[in-house]
């Protein structure tokens, strides 16, 4: 087997050196009646060429976004990732190393984590960011738990603009931890009165902007209301590119900012791996979940980086840890950081403007179609349109024409007739005019 270096002779010699007669002697602690006698009922090993063929075969059964006009968003966005990013994340030294437990020989990883943390903190206008969570949704769950710890309360208020699957993650965690939740109903228009729900027992308010429906939310008044009651504002985003153009949550008074970083550096990948961004105020840093990389010096006084404040973490604090997270999104951070380094201030802001400009253009054109109306007052690169029929059906019909028209809200909010005719449409820099034309034409025909 190509991945196993031993010959049978090696194995025999090594067993002799160990001083046992057969390999099974080393498995003697397995209770005799529990030892597997028959081979696993699975096919035998397979050459690389054959495996590659099988994988190509499976991949070919999927319609990839590159092949088709593509308008799906709803928390996962198709952006152009510079070729250099993939080159860097495939470098053996990054790809095949692990958590930088030995800082002297993992300065590469540590330094990019320090750069990543700084980029995320600056983008969100927060004091400090960690070295990533699994993704935006699990990060949101952790943010709520952190707010509980900080405020020593356990009731979170959840906006109706939060991504329904993020909400589900928070719900699940809260339910399992016997925490309380106040969940507002779906809020496509961004018109809910969330401030009214904040009381003295509120640990935090969770608000997403751009919302799941694309709406931009003014978080300043919410932050003020939170702080007046001793609660924290948890600001969520699913499209990090928006931060190139909209007022960052840190500038609006958020206490914890959490979001999905996939858009920068990372592909769609059918939903994972992604990279959760997590930032907070300096004063809460010791309640933060996840790894942190910090600056220090070596024995000769040269600057270097290490993982730090690990007394928050499970491997030191065990059941008193701020989270159980261990492995995080290392390589996806690297992809994020490399892409962000290529973009820089000038690039991310322009990229955001391009996204917004294209979305504005498409929104206008769709709005002009009879039977189609854009419901958002404001948005970034994704908006919700109301159709004259079931949105899921429309999507099916457009799929047959080779167009992925967007995500029907009903896919994530299934049992809600008010939302059945709503379609989320996302536009990025990858969307061409021709693709927009095709969507407009097709919708005109089916709408």
């Amino acid at each position, binding site marked *: 087997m190509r991945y196993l270096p031993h010959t049978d002779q090696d194995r025999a010699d090594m067993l002799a050196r160990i001083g046992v007669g057969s390999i099974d002697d*080393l498995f003697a602690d397995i209770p005799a009646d529990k030892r597997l006698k028959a081979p696993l009922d699975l096919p035998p090993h397979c050459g690389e060429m054959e495996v590659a063929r099988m994988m190509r075969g499976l991949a070919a059964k999927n319609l990839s976004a590159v092949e088709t006009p593509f308008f799906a968003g709803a928390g996962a966005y198709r952006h152009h990732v510079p070729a250099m990013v993939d080159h860097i994340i495939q470098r053996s030294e990054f790809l095949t190393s692990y958590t930088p437990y030995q800082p002297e020989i993992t300065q590469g990883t540590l330094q990019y984590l320090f750069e990543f943390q700084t980029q995320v903190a600056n983008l969100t206008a927060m004091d400090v960011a960690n070295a990533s969570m699994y993704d935006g949704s699990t990060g949101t769950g952790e943010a709520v738990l952190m707010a509980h710890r900080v405020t020593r309360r356990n009731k979170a208020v959840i906006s109706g603009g939060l991504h329904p699957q993020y909400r589900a993650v928070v719900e699940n965690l809260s339910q399992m931890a016997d925490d309380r939740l106040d969940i507002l109903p779906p809020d496509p228009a961004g018109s809910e009165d969330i401030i009214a729900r904040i009381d003295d027992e509120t640990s935090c308010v969770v608000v997403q902007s751009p919302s799941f429906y694309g709406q931009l939310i003014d978080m300043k008044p919410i932050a003020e209301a939170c702080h007046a009651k001793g609660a924290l504002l948890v600001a969520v985003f699913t499209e990090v590119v928006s931060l190139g153009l909209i007022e960052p949550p840190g500038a609006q008074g958020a206490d914890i900012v959490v979001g999905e970083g996939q858009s920068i550096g990372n592909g769609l990948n059918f939903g994972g791996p992604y990279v959760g961004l997590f930032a907070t105020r300096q004063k809460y840093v010791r309640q933060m979940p996840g790894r942190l990389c910090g600056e220090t010096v070596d024995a000769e006084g040269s600057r270097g980086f290490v993982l730090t404040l690990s007394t928050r973490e499970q491997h030191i604090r065990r059941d008193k840890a701020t989270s159980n997270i261990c492995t995080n999104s290392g390589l996806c951070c690297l992809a994020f950081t490399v892409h962000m380094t290529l973009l820089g201030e000038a690039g991310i802001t322009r990229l955001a403007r391009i996204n917004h400009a294209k979305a504005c253009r498409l929104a206008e054109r769709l709005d002009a179609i009879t039977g189609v109306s854009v419901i958002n007052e404001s948005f970034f690169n994704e908006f919700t349109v109301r159709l004259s029929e079931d949105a899921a059906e429309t999507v099916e019909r457009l799929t047959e024409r080779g167009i992925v028209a967007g995500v029907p809200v009903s896919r994530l909010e299934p049992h809600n007739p008010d939302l059945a005719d709503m379609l989320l449409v996302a536009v990025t820099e990858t969307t061409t005019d021709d693709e927009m034309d095709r969507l407009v034409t097709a919708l005109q025909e089916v709408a």
Partner: protein
Amino acid sequence: MVNSQGRPTQPQAGSENSSGTDRPTFTGNRALQLEEPLIFETGRTDITGVDLAEPDEFASRLGGHGRTAPIDLPALSEPEAMRHYVRLSQKNYAIDMGLYPLGSCTMKHNPRLNEQSARLPGFSDIHPLQPQSTVQGALELIHELGRWLVTITGMQAVAMSPKAGAHGELCGMMAIKAALTARGKTPTKVLVPESAHGTNPATAALLRYSVVDVPARKDGTVGADEVKRLIAEHAGDIAAIMLTNPNTCGLFEPEIAEIAEAVHEAGGFFYCDGANLNAIMGKARPGDLGVDAMHINLHKTFSTPHGGGGPGAGPVVLSGALAPFAPLPFVEKDGNAYRLVETEHDDGGSHPFGRMTAFHGQMGMFVRAYAWMLSHGSDGMKQASEDAVLNANYVRAGLADLMSLPYPDHPSMHEVLFDDSFLKDTGVSTLDFAKAMIDEGYHPMTMYFPLVVHGALLIEPTESESRASLDLFIATMRDLVMAAKGGESERFTGAPHFAPRRRLDETRAARNPILKWAPPAPYEEAAE
């Protein structure tokens, strides 16, 4: 003396040793060892490494939510960025460079076939919410991967969405809590051996369980008697035991079946930490041992790359008792089609406890793990486990006389645990010893874990190592032990000597945390 690499092991008699490697250079570089500043020190906000055309004028729909202040994100042009990250990479050690015997982490070879497969646009460029009819291949892959995992472990079902091992633990424990709740039970305690990985107690705590420590026996394993005693002590209040098997001392728990039975009898469940599955593929199945839930680190056993700390994937296999409570989403096969079930449906049988994450899990990792499995097959996986165990015991046999084996009574599984008593009175700590290994070109083993022995050194070579590689490792370790015992303490306390950085000051980092780059304060006293 010349060692197996053909290099002198001692300065040669008569050699001037004039290499002058302490000579400073002007740049701070030392030939191929290149210093590299932060992007914040070299980058600029007025350049960019991408070419994007400014859009034509348009009527913004930001509704007054536009950004008002600069972000402060420097850019590098593409050539500068390339160098920056390539240079950084060269400050890392990696599996692709050498033995990486980090116990409990299963640092095995990462085949590039898997990387190539994951990058097929049919996998990498598909959206989690595009119509299911357009992602049948992806759903098939998830379904098949799940089937392999269930078969390997002898379990009944699998939840694919958890994002790493710890997330899998959370998922498994949630399924347990849901099942208990469904039975109308609300026990409050979870048994966890002292040797457990930190994620186990941390997970239990997230579910508001309190942890009851299970002490290990002298031989490093958990006794069924002790478990029974604790169950009795906390009668009716035990939700589960979280046991790692093979355990973190590298031993197979011989009384595991009896323990499982005892827990089940007490109305509890058996959560098995599956981080060490690499030892037993094709040799024993957790399902046969009474396990109810077990996460599988695809980034360990199934070789998805560790990537500097992630991403991983932690699918959880479940027993029949827990299967109905598996979280959303899951894939069902329906004739020739695959269906992704994302919301509760009332088939009566399933009661998903909720959702672990947005979307459907770590597809990128699934592709890689599945390619690994197809490549190995039934025979290759068994051989991999056997070779992993063989290698660990070979290292043990090569070092047992010089180092100290706390648990000599059992054969090791895929990793071998030493304690630091062999370093007694040498003035060399486990940490020092590890840093000296760095100078020799090795990544150190896991240190100071598990907590049950003093100054633990946990060595997991994995099946990827050749005999020659192990022989050199053993010889090097022996040389180091002899040096420690022989009083060459500078070789250890001053180590590493040759790495991109000398020993780093972790205390300083924690005392005054600098977690983000800030521009240097201006020199206020500057004369001009």
